[in-house]
């Protein structure tokens, strides 16, 4: 069931998440200095510095003399920097697949073809301009104690049934992304809606249980680990896995009806000063022989070309023009309104 409420009449379309006119806001910036510098690689990324620093250092170890300036920003600020301000970066790395796709579609990315990129499966690259280097499934994080005495759900229908049958136990203890604020949350929700109508039933059930809405994965996972939440729906498995060793009560599960898989992607902005250097860094990220290294250093699951054969429920979000649909302002408004109507009940 798709709900259309209303949209405004005539709006000049610009970019989904860009509203302000000021320069983009960086969160962190770090210069990975080297001796005998020969070149500088400027990376604009949505990935946390502490996760990617070891990977940058590994890259520098293999390519001596290359200084790396690593700037982090939110996905919407990254989009603003490249789309509106033509900020000069050699690499744009983001988990916001829809925005990355739009950058490529609208001509803001340069082409790169190499032996390394040809090792990527078709679903992990688009137009030789957008390359995925991690595959991060959306999972259910839950507290074991909260599910005591209950069967562990294996798919969404079972979870919905459990929530419906135990309103007292789960009231106020269900968390998910606030899709108005979280790009990842919006991406997961829209993909869920494509895969199955259960999203809307889920939203309704969660709404009735006074679901808590979060902007970011980390707080949501922490609240599950601390027992404030019984479960968190659609959190990034890679982030949850990082909390597992310290929180024995925390567990994650992948649904077997379908598991949405987000791809972290890189592209070469057209403002790059050194396209060969950018290409070299992309080759480093997507190379088949570096996948093990990426997993070890970042804890993020690297691209596995054979994963679709093994994991029947895996649904990597498809790169391509389909992602532009959810960036449409009218579409976004319609979708969010429908979601809010179900989730936030009077």
């Amino acid at each position, binding site marked *: 069931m798709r709900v259309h409420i*209303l*949209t405004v009449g005539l709006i000049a379309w610009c970019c989904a998440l860009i509203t302000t006119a000021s320069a983009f806001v960086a969160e962190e910036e770090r210069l990975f200095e080297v001796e005998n510098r020969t070149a500088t690689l400027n990376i604009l990324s949505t990935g946390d510095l502490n996760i990617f620093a070891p990977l940058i250092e590994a890259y520098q170890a293999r390519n001596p003399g290359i200084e790396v300036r690593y700037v982090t920003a939110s996905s919407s600020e990254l989009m603003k920097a490249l789309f509106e301000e033509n900020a000069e970066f050699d690499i744009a790395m983001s988990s916001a697949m829809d925005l990355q796709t739009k950058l490529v*579609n609208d001509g803001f990315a340069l082409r790169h073809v190499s032996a390394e990129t040809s090792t990527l499966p078709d679903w992990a690259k688009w137009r030789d301009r957008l390359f995925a280097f991690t595959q991060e499934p959306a999972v259910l994080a839950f507290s074991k104690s909260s599910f005591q005495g209950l069967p562990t759900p294996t798919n969404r229908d079972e979870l919905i049934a459990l929530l419906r049958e135990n309103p007292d136990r789960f009231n106020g203890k269900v968390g998910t992304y606030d899709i108005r604020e979280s790009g990842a949350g919006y991406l997961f929700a829209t993909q869920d809606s494509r895969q199955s109508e259960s999203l809307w039933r889920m939203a309704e059930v969660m709404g009735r249980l006074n679901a808590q809405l979060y902007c970011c994965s980390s707080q949501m996972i922490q609240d599950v680990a601390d027992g404030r939440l019984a479960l968190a729906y659609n959190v990034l498995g890679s982030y949850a896995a990082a909390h597992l060793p310290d929180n024995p009560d925390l567990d994650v599960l992948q649904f077997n009806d379908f598991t949405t898989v987000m791809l972290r992607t890189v592209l070469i902005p057209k403002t790059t000063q050194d396209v060969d250097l950018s290409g070299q860094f992309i080759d480093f990220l997507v190379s088949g022989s570096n996948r093990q290294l990426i997993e070890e250093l970042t804890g993020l699951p690297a691209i596995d070309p054979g994963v679709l054969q093994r994991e029947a429920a895996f649904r990597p979000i498809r790169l391509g023009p389909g992602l532009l649909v959810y960036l449409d302002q009218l579409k976004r408004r319609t979708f969010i309104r429908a979601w809010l109507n179900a989730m936030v009940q009077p």
Partner: protein
Amino acid sequence: MTAVRTRGSLRRRLLLQLLLVAAILSVALYFTVRALAQQAAETTQDNILIASATAISEAVRAERGQILVDVPYSALSMLGSIAEERVFYRITADDLTVTGYDDLPVPSATIDAGNPVFATAIYRGDEVRIAALPRRLTVADETVILTVLVAQTRLGLAAVSLQISIAAAAAGIGFFVLSGALSWFATNNAMRPLNRLAQSVARRGPQDLSPVETSAPTELVPLLQSLNTFMGRLSASLARTEDFIAEAAHHVRTPLATVRTQSEIAMRSVRKPENKQILREVIRAADESSRSAGQLLDHAMVALRSDNLEKERLHVRELAQDVIRSISPTADLKDIRITCSGSDTIGSVEGDPILLQNALRNLLDNAVKYSPEDSIIKVEILQSGSTVRVDVIDEGRGLGDGDRQHLTERFGRGNNVRDIIGSGLGLTIVEEVMRAHGGTLKLSDNPEKRGTCASISLPLA
């Protein structure tokens, strides 16, 4: 034989024309295939674009004075399923953009509700194909023209076009090569009856005037008929000529014999030495004339017989001895001795005995005629290699200084024998007999003293 001027070649002409046709067809094939395939590729893209625009258009509705658009995921994702192209869309109500890329150009063709319009334009650095699907929409009691524009780059199409062009070129070249080979075979095949006819005519001997009896295609039948008619006429004409000569010689010889007989009778009755001398001259002239007439007969016979040689195995020595025997009385008159040498081991030849005897008699006749009294004529038979050679060597006046080739021509005579009566046919007869038998006649000077050596060579059987 007169030289035939060559002007062009039928085969080359046919082949070139067939190749030209094949080349034109190949080029036409190339352009047709390319145009059709390109059109098909463009139509495919247009169809997908219009399907996408239709899906979006159907998701537009008006409610409470507002236009609502819920772009279906499939509307844009279907564009990504064929090729990795850039995709743009725009929805306008009259001239205002509802959503999408607000600078996407609207095709300039008249926008008429219900009829999709296509255009190709450069947008954001790439060539794009734009489909515009207009429809009427009532918003707050006002009718607006709602236009859904969907555009897609044509990079894939360009690649496909290139592939198609290459494939079409390959097909064209392949077609040309195949047609070329077939043309070559067809030309050869068409020329074969003509070649066969030409060969069968060329294979015929110089005297063969019988009709050509090869089967020929319809187109060659008139030529063949004309050729056969011509040869028939030629053959009849030749036969008539030979008959005429034979007849004429016969008619000349009979009265000459009478003249000779009457002169001999008269000689016995006249007393005066000067009268006797006159009669002697008359007899000699009658003899020479008779001999010339005989040679004319011989010549005609040789010409006729050499068309159909009646070959048998012959021993040259026996043949020569027969001829020597028959000519000895004449030689004895001049006290000329004829010797014959040659071993018994000499191989035999194949030939017409009458013609070969005739040839030898002519050689010996000549030798006797031009030899002085009381001299020797040597006939030597020897085998050299695969031929049998007969040398007739006299001690006469020799060949003189003139053109020796001319001696074997019909009625040709040496310029040192004007005082002796002769027909000039003797050596011609010898030459023709030799030619009919695959042999040769050679004239040279007597290697030992004054005189002539006439040699004939015949191939061994």
